[in-house]
């Protein structure tokens, strides 16, 4: 831990947070928010949370910014002019925020010291994970083993939450019938838009490598930062890159709406299916050690490692499909005709 870096990054984060709230242009706010997420990502790395940093880099700095862009594209860019009579509500909001801050500052006196290895949070449960992960599961990346094995239930329902979010976006926005679309406003024009050969060429060359990297992130999550969530978001981002640099229709040609929803289902099903397979083999739900009965040439420890790989693949498929689906729905206002 380098405290100079810590201080400077945290200061920049606060500046970015102020700027993104204060700026009058929503596109600028989205860009500053992207910078804010990227600084967060530096901060996580600096504190040793590499997996969190990886997720923040792909989700916060990548997909979130694009989602904000898509929403601004479909609505309006300018924040409305300030009206009189809002001063009172602003004062109330300020008082509420200050009160919350005051309560937290009082509570802060009782917080455990920062970077102290002997805080209660680090004494009871996590030492088991740190010392036993290699022995129990043969997975050196503790974050992956806790995520996919020790706390597999948690992650399964988290995947289900992502899936539900995708369904909710489709339910809110999707317009299937032609007559439903008449009342929709035309999208806001950010730029005239012309086919830029350089951007298209570079994007086309990059996409296969991005997808290969995403597969590596999924498959190598046991030994290095990464895993199903990060790999899935990167896979989804590669399709979003295609949709932005080329055409909306190209992505629809590869990943149609039917496939997106189907893959989201399949991903969650793989996760739950592996859990049920363990149940059928006579173990507890998501206890992968029993998978050694069906997997060739694996003992109980390696079976847990392979079981984790299986559910990471399921998570990656589900997250990829849902990220693409959310983007396509927001950017086309549920019409699936044209995007950014």
């Amino acid at each position: 831990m380098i405290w100079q870096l810590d201080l400077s990054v945290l200061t920049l984060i606060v500046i970015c947070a102020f700027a993104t709230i204060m700026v009058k242009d929503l596109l600028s706010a989205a860009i500053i928010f992207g910078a804010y997420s990227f600084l967060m990502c530096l901060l996580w790395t600096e504190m040793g949370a590499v997996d969190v940093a990886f997720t923040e880099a792909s989700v916060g700095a990548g997909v979130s910014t694009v989602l904000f862009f898509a929403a601004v594209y479909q609505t309006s860019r300018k924040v409305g002019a300030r009206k009189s009579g809002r001063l009172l509500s602003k004062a109330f909001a300020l008082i509420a925020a200050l009160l919350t801050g005051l309560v937290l500052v009082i509570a802060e006196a009782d917080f455990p010291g920062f970077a102290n290895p002997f805080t209660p949070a680090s004494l009871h449960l996590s030492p088991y994970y740190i010392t036993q992960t290699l022995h129990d599961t043969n997975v050196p990346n503790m974050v992956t083993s806790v995520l996919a094995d020790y706390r597999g239930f948690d992650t399964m329902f988290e995947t289900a939450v992502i899936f539900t979010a995708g369904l909710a976006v489709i339910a809110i926005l999707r317009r299937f019938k032609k007559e439903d679309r008449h009342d929709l406003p035309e999208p806001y024009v950010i730029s005239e838009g012309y086919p830029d050969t350089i951007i298209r060429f570079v994007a086309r060359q990059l996409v296969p490598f991005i997808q290969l990297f995403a597969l590596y992130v999924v498959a190598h999550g046991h030994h290095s930062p990464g895993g199903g969530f990060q790999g899935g978001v990167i896979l989804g981002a590669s399709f979003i890159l295609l949709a932005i640099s080329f055409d909306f229709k190209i992505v629809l040609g590869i990943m149609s709406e039917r496939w997106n929803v189907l893959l989201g289902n399949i991903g969650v099903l793989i996760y739950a299916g592996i859990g049920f397979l363990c149940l059928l083999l006579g173990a507890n739900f998501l206890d992968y050690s029993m998978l050694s009965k069906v997997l060739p040439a694996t003992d109980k420890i390696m079976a847990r490692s392979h079981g984790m790989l299986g559910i990471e693949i399921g998570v990656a498929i589900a997250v990829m499909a849902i990220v693409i689906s959310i983007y396509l729905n927001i950017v086309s206002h549920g019409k699936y005709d044209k995007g950014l």
Partner: protein
Amino acid sequence: MHSIVADYNYWIYILLMMIGLYAMLAKNNLIKKVIGMSIFQTAIIIFYVSIGAKEHATIPIIAHGHGAVEAAIDVAHYANPLVHVLMLTAIVVSVGTLGVALAICLAIHRKYNSLEEDEIQEQLQ
């Protein structure tokens, strides 16, 4: 100096939480409110990750394989992996909530043709 560094992460998390809460309450524009919600979420993530940080600790991945020395694993030598797992999934869920929030904003814009809170309330009355 050490005491400032020791508490700086916590001060910043409180400050970010206040910024996020203020934006959610006071901002008139719905997208700005969504940004405030995201800032609030990241403030909580800073709090958790700060709890899990340890001085002189490395990332929670055990060196192993070819050439690695098999040694007894010292708990204080690795950052707390549990908070990392919780926050990792929280970030992924936050993109889900962000997607739903923006979808609701778009649906509101479709109906009221505005994203400003006071204009929507005028039309509602």
